[in-house]
C-alpha cells in the first residue's frame, strides 16, 4: 500500500478547510441530495462528500457507508486531493497503491473509486466529491464531466455554508442539477405524493412524449405506466413515503409512438422544493431484451442442430476431456445422456484390445489436433461402445482456436459400418473377378503360347499367323483386365502406393526392359540419356512408375515409324510455388503426332487418337488414363506436347525427395 503524499502547503490547506467551518457539523439535506443523486446517476452504492483533515477524512455527506470518518493514511481521497483533474481507480485490486489497503481487503471492500477535488474559495483542495463501488468499473470522459458538475455544486454549497445562503447560489445549484439530469441517458422523473409527474428530464421527455398540448410534467404517472393499475402506483408511493420503497422494479411504459417499452427502474425518495418526491430513474431494456431474444434464438437453433444431427458431435478441452457431447454421440456409443461429459474422450472410445494392444492418447488424431492445431478430416477409426463392442467410424477433428491458442477441439464422428461392409464385399468381388478372369486366361495364353512357340512342332504358315493373332489378343485381354481392375481400385479410392526410394536410372532401365522386345519387333531405335542423372532418387511406388514409363515407351514404339528413334531424357526443375524440386522424364518420339484438339482427350478412358489405332492392335484405351492417375497420386504431373507430323513428347514430373545415397536399404 502506498500512503497519500502530504502536500508541502498542507498546513495552509488544512487552515482553509477549517475556515469553511463545516467539519463535524450535522448532516444536511443539500449535500445528501447531491450524493444521493450521484449514487443514482452513476449507479454506485456509495457516494461521499469527504473533507481531508490533518490525520483523517471526515464525511460531510455519506450515502451507503456507516463510518463518519477514516484515517487519512489509508484514504483514497488523500490521493485524490493531489490530482486537480480528478482521480479514478477502476480496479483497486489491480493497483499496487491500494491492493492491500484495509478499505479494499475488508469492509467496505472498495474496488472502484472516482473522486473530484473540492476547492475552498481560495483554491485549496479541501476534500473530494467521490463515488465508490464494490465491483471494478470503467469511467469515461462523459462521466468525469458529470462528476465535475457534482463537485462544482458541492463547492457552491460549501461556499454557501461559509457565506450563508443566497438566492443566486440556489439558482446555480438548480441549474447544475438540471444540467446533470438532462445530460444522462437514463430516464429520470420525479413523482409527487399524489402520483403526478413533477419533473422529467430530457431522456424521459423523448421517450414518453412531451408536447404543448400534453405536457409530461403534470400527468399522472399511471398514464404512462401500462402494467400497473393506478392503485398499485399509489401503493408504491405509499411504500416509498413510509421508507419501504422497492429498490428496483421493471415497469412497462407507453412510449411516444404508442409502443410499450420495458424499463428497469431504481427508486429513491427526495425533497424537491421542500416537498417529498419519489424519484424514478429508468433504463430502456428494449435493446437488451432484443439482444437476449436473439441470443436465445441462436442458442435454440444451435441446440436444435446439435440434437438433430445423426453424427456424434463432441467438444473436448485441451486435455481431451469432454465438455459437451450431443445426443447422437451418446447414442452411437451406447451411453446414457451426459455420461460423456467430464470423461477423456479418447480413452472412452479406444479400449485396450483383448490381445493387449493399446491405443495411446499421445500421437492420436485428437492429440494431434490439440497439439498441432491441425484439422484432420475423414479419418477412419474404430470406436468402442460402452458394452465393449466396436464399430468403424469416419471422424473429423478440428481445433477450437481462441486468442490464437488451441483451447480444445470439435470431434465429429459417424458410424460407417454399412460403408465398410459395402467396401469389404466390393473388394471381395474384385478379388474374385480378378481370379476368375485370370484363370481361364492363364490356360488360353499358356496353350496358345506353347503352340505358337513351336513346342508341339511347326504348324502351317497360315495356322501360325492365326495363332499369332490369338496370342496378341490374349495379351491384350490380359492387359485390359489388369487395367480395368486398376481403374476400379482408383475409383474406389483403394489403389495404394507402396512408396520407397528408387534410383531414377533404375526405374527407366526396368521400364525399357519391359518394351525392349516391342522396339526390336517394330525396328524402332531407343536412346536413353537418363543414366546421366544417376545421382537422383525418387520416392515412389517403383512398380507403378515403371508401369507408367512402360506404357509411354510402348505407345512411342507403337506409333513410331520403323527406323525412327525414341529418346528418353530427364532433367530437374524447381517449382517456385511449391518450393519443390521435380525430376522430369521425357519420352519423345518421331511419330505422326497428335492433333491439338485431341491432346487432352488422350488421357480419357477408352480414348485413342483415331479408330485406326485399333490396327496397332494392343491398346486397351485405358493406359494413359491410368498413367495420369498414378503420376498424380505421386503429386506429380503427366503432360504431353505434340506436333502433327513431327512427333510427341510425354513428360512425367515427380517430386524429388532425396538423393541416391539415401536410398532405402
Amino acid at each position: 500500500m502506498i500512503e497519500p503524499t502530504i502536500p508541502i502547503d498542507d498546513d495552509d490547506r488544512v487552515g482553509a478547510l477549517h475556515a469553511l467551518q463545516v467539519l463535524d457539523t450535522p448532516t444536511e439535506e443539500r449535500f445528501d441530495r447531491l450524493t444521493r443523486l450521484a449514487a443514482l446517476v452513476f449507479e454506485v452504492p456509495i457516494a461521499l462528500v469527504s473533507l481531508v483533515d490533518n490525520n483523517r477524512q471526515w464525511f460531510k455527506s455519506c450515502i451507503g457507508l456507516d463510518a463518519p470518518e477514516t484515517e487519512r493514511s489509508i484514504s483514497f481521497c488523500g490521493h485524490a486531493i493531489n490530482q486537480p483533474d480528478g482521480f479514478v481507480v477502476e480496479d483497486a485490486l489491480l493497483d499496487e497503491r491500494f491492493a492491500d489497503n484495509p478499505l479494499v481487503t475488508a469492509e467496505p471492500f472498495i474496488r472502484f473509486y472516482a473522486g473530484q477535488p473540492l476547492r475552498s474559495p481560495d483554491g485549496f483542495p479541501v476534500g473530494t466529491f467521490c463515488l465508490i463501488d464494490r465491483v471494478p468499473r470503467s469511467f469515461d470522459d462523459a462521466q468525469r464531466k458529470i462528476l465535475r458538475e457534482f463537485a462544482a455544486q458541492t463547492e457552491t454549497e460549501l461556499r454557501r455554508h461559509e457565506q450563508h445562503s443566497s438566492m443566486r447560489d440556489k439558482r446555480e445549484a438548480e441549474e447544475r442539477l438540471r444540467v446533470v439530469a438532462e445530460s444522462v441517458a437514463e430516464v429520470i422523473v420525479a413523482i409527487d405524493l399524489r402520483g403526478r409527474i413533477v419533473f422529467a428530464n430530457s431522456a424521459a421527455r423523448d421517450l414518453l412524449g412531451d408536447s404543448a398540448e400534453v405536457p409530461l410534467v403534470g400527468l399522472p404517472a399511471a398514464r404512462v405506466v401500462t402494467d400497473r393499475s393506478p392503485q398499485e402506483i399509489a401503493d408504491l408511493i405509499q411504500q416509498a413515503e413510509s421508507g419501504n420503497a422497492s429498490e428496483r422494479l421493471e415497469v412497462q411504459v407507453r412510449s411516444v409512438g404508442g409502443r410499450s417499452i420495458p424499463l428497469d427502474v431504481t427508486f429513491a425518495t427526495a425533497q424537491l422544493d421542500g416537498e417529498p418526491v419519489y424519484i424514478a430513474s429508468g433504463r430502456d431494456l428494449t435493446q437488451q431484451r432484443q439482444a437476449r431474444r436473439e441470443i436465445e434464438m441462436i442458442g435454440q437453433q444451435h441446440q436444435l442442430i446439435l440434437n438433430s444431427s445423426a453424427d456424434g458431435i463432441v467438444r473436448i478441452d485441451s486435455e481431451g476431456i469432454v465438455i459437451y457431447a450431443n445426443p447422437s454421440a451418446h447414442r452411437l456409443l451406447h451411453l446414457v445422456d451426459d455420461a460423456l461429459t467430464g470423461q477423456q474422450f479418447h480413452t472412452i472410445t479406444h479400449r485396450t484390445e483383448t490381445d493387449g494392444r493399446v491405443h495411446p492418447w499421445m500421437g492420436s488424431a485428437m492429440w494431434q489436433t490439440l497439439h498441432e492445431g491441425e484439422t484432420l478430416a475423414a479419418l477412419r477409426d474404430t470406436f468402442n461402445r460402452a458394452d465393449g463392442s466396436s464399430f468403424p467410424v469416419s471422424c473429423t477433428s478440428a481445433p477450437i482456436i481462441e486468442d490464437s491458442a488451441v483451447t480444445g477441439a470439435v470431434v465429429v464422428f459417424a458410424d460407417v459400418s454399412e460403408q465398410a461392409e459395402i467396401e469389404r464385399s466390393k473388394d471381395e468381388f474384385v478379388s474374385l473377378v480378378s481370379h476368375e478372369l485370370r484363370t481361364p486366361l492363364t490356360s488360353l495364353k499358356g496353350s496358345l503360347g506353347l503352340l505358337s512357340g513351336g513346342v508341339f512342332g511347326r504348324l502351317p504358315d497360315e495356322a501360325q499367323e492365326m495363332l499369332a493373332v490369338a496370342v496378341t489378343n490374349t495379351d491384350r485381354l490380359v492387359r485390359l483386365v489388369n487395367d480395368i481392375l486398376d481403374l476400379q481400385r482408383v475409383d474406389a479410392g483403394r489403389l495404394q502406393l507402396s512408396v520407397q526410394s528408387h534410383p531414377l536410372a533404375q526405374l527407366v532401365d526396368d521400364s525399357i526392359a519391359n518394351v525392349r522386345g516391342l522396339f526390336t519387333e517394330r525396328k524402332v531405335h531407343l536412346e536413353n540419356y537418363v543414366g546421366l542423372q544417376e545421382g537422383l532418387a525418387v520416392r515412389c511406388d517403383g512398380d507403378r512408375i515403371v508401369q507408367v514409363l512402360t506404357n509411354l515407351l510402348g505407345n512411342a514404339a507403337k506409333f513410331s515409324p520403323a527406323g525412327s528413334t525414341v529418346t528418353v531424357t530427364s532433367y530437374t526443375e524447381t517449382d517456385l510455388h511449391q518450393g519443390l524440386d521435380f525430376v522430369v522424364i521425357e519420352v519423345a518420339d518421331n511419330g505422326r503426332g497428335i492433333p491439338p484438339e485431341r491432346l487432352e482427350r488422350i488421357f480419357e478412358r477408352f480414348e485413342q487418337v483415331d479408330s485406326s489405332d485399333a490396327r496397332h492392335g494392343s491398346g486397351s484405351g485405358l493406359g494413359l488414363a491410368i498413367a495420369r492417375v498414378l503420376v498424380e497420386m505421386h503429386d506429380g504431373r503427366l503432360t504431353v506436347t505434340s506436333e502433327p507430323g513431327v512427333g510427341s513428347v510425354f513428360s512425367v514430373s515427380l517430386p524429388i525427395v532425396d538423393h541416391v545415397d539415401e536410398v532405402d536399404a
Partner: protein
Amino acid sequence: MTRRLLLVDDDDGVRLVARASLERVGGWTVTAVRSGADAIESAAASPPDAILLDVMMPGLDGPNTLAELQGRAELAHIPVIFLTAKARSAQHDSLLRLGAIGVLVKPFDPMQLSNQVVALLGFGP
C-alpha cells in the same frame, strides 16, 4: 535324372499348360496335383525338389498348404513358389512373408515360365 517339381493348381487347364511348359520348354519332371491336401500327401510320399503352389484353391488354400509343409520337419526345407492370379505387389509381399521364395503371376508366358522358376530357385532341371 532330372529334378522334379510338384505343381499344385485346382484348375485343369492351368495344370495342363503349366505342366507342358515346364516339361517341354524347361525340361523338368513334373508331378501335378489338384489340391493342397493332395500336395501334402504327394510331397510326403516322395519329396519334390521344389513346389509351385496356387494361392486360391478350395479346401486347403496355398498359404495353408505352405504352413502345413513348414510344420513337417521332412518337408519344411522344400522351396515353394506361389503361382497367383492376384496381380498386386502388395499381395505378393505378404505371400513372401509366409516363407515362399518367390511369387509368379498368372497368366504367365509359357515360353518363359521355366526360366522364371530357375531364376527363383537358383537351380535348373
